[in-house]
């Protein structure tokens, strides 16, 4: 601040000027700061990181899923060289032949369980903290939709290895949906593309698993995190300080504030 070398100022300008340029046109820097540099209660708990952990698990699923999609073939026809279904053969190739394929597939397979487990722990934490209450009801509702979409992702992904477990578990899953009153049989027939699982089912579920549902869940995650950012983090139930109290005015919210150590807001222009 006061004692700043000329060189320091120069470096600072070199770093910040492009950011200023971008921010002036897009508000991207201010937006990022709004998203990341937030006030949180003094006594936040470790359990409040479960949401971020779930998001991390989802990102892992996305990356490994994209890579698996490069090698997986969703076809139930028989591979003439192996005599097994093409889908199953491609899974075998990923697991046994392709370098590090076992790792990526294993990460995706176990990561799915990790994602669901973290999701439920996160939900339990939100419930026990009462963090679903006013004004965060919509965050909870989008969270419930996220849970449903996440479970649908697990359900649709389970069929893709096209082995006996996958096949019969999906038969049972589809027929479970079929027992819903009124529209159940219609839903089941839509999911199976006909009265029973057939040649089209695998491709349909692959499309659901890697196009429809990821699109839906990403949109929901965006809304969910926007709401979390907008409404702030809730105090734990044991917090000594009252929620919603007046806080000290934050540092001026210019694009640069807080980006450089020492808080040189409005430094060199």
């Amino acid at each position, binding site marked *: 601040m006061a004692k700043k070398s000329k060189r320091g100022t120069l470096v600072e300008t070199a770093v910040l000027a492009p950011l200023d340029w971008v921010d002036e046109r897009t508000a991207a820097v201010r937006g990022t700061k709004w998203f990341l540099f937030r006030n949180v209660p003094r006594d936040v708990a470790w359990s409040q990181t479960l949401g971020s952990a779930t998001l991390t698990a989802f990102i892992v699923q996305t990356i490994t899923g994209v890579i698996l999609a490069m090698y997986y073939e969703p076809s139930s026809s028989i591979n003439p060289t192996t005599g097994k279904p093409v889908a199953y053969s491609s899974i075998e190739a990923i697991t046994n032949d392709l370098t590090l394929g076992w790792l990526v597939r294993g990460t995706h397979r176990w990561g799915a369980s990790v994602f669901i487990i973290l999701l439920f722990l996160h939900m339990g934490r939100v419930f026990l903290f009462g963090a679903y209450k006013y004004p965060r009801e919509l965050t909870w509702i989008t969270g419930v939709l996220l849970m449903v979409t996440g479970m649908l992702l697990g359900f649709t992904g389970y069929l893709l290895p096209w082995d006996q477990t996958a096949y019969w578990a999906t038969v049972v899953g589809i027929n479970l949906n079929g027992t819903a009153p009124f529209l159940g049989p219609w839903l089941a027939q839509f999911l199976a593309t006909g009265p*029973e699982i057939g040649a089209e089912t695998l491709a349909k579920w692959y499309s659901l698993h890697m196009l429809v549902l990821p699109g839906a869940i990403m949109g929901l995650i965006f809304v969910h995190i926007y709401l979390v950012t907008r409404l702030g983090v809730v105090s734990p139930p044991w917090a000594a300080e009252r929620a919603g109290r007046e806080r000290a005015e934050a540092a001026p919210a210019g694009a640069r504030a807080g980006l450089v150590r020492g808080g040189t807001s409005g430094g060199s222009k």
Partner: protein
Amino acid sequence: MSETGHDNPHAPGPSLWPIGFAIGVACLLLGLVLSWIIAAIGAVLAVVFGLLWARDVTREVRGEVPEIEPESRAMADEAAVPAEPTAAAPLPTYTRSRFLEASTLGIGAAIGAVVTLPVLGFMVLPSFTNLEEQDADLGPLENFPKGRYMIASYLALPKAGEVSRRTVFVRYNGLVENPASQGRQEPSFTILYSRCVHLGCPVQPNGPIDEAAKKDVNGVELRPVLAQSFGCPCHGGLYDAEGNRRAGPPVRSMDRAEYSIKNGRLVLGQLYAVGNVSGTGANAMISRYPWSTPGTHVDGIEAWLYPIVPSQVTG
């Protein structure tokens, strides 16, 4: 705690009714398993306490509803005072920008519908229309000994390959007189479809399979089995030799297949659902229904939950 804090502006007062409501719901769910009377009591409790709870919660809101003056008085006043000439009121106008806004939205919606509807139709309709069906030829009648089951495994749609492999349990019941065709002697078969009517797992015959006598007739695999009952490995459903449920979660009797005899060969037709079978073998009385998804009731009061099933519409 300050009453003006952000965290508790809508907090309703404490109420005991939710407890009664919860007990009612629990009672209702328990009654679904135990008896209709308990379920009815639970339903009444849930409705009564639910209404009380809703009344309690909305008391504040309802309290704020302002008293509405009777309309008749206002009418009377208006009648007493001579009405102002209505021409003074500004005429409702429909501006050019409002028109453009509405037409943009309308045309946009129309274009959107024209583009979206066929796509949605393509997504949904192939599951219900033009479903390929083929009669399966299970081979000559001589392959089916009288009074015992054969496991017949065949491709329902040879073009689709192994994914269409289906299994039926076929029992020849001997020759019976068919009153429909002037009392002529005709062969009778019991043909049970192997998919469990609980949730569609492959039902297995409870008995030794004679693998040595296995036959392959034009791609149809036939294996004799000594079984008087069938069990499902997934959730423990158990059926007797006529396909009636004996234990476990299935909700109806095993599905059956229509059959016909063509040139001395047994040909499978459509599948159909069975409510119950009384009698055995050729004399069995089968309450027959259109095929429906496993797990759905076809008879009794629960069938009301599935008023229209796809197989009734698309065949």
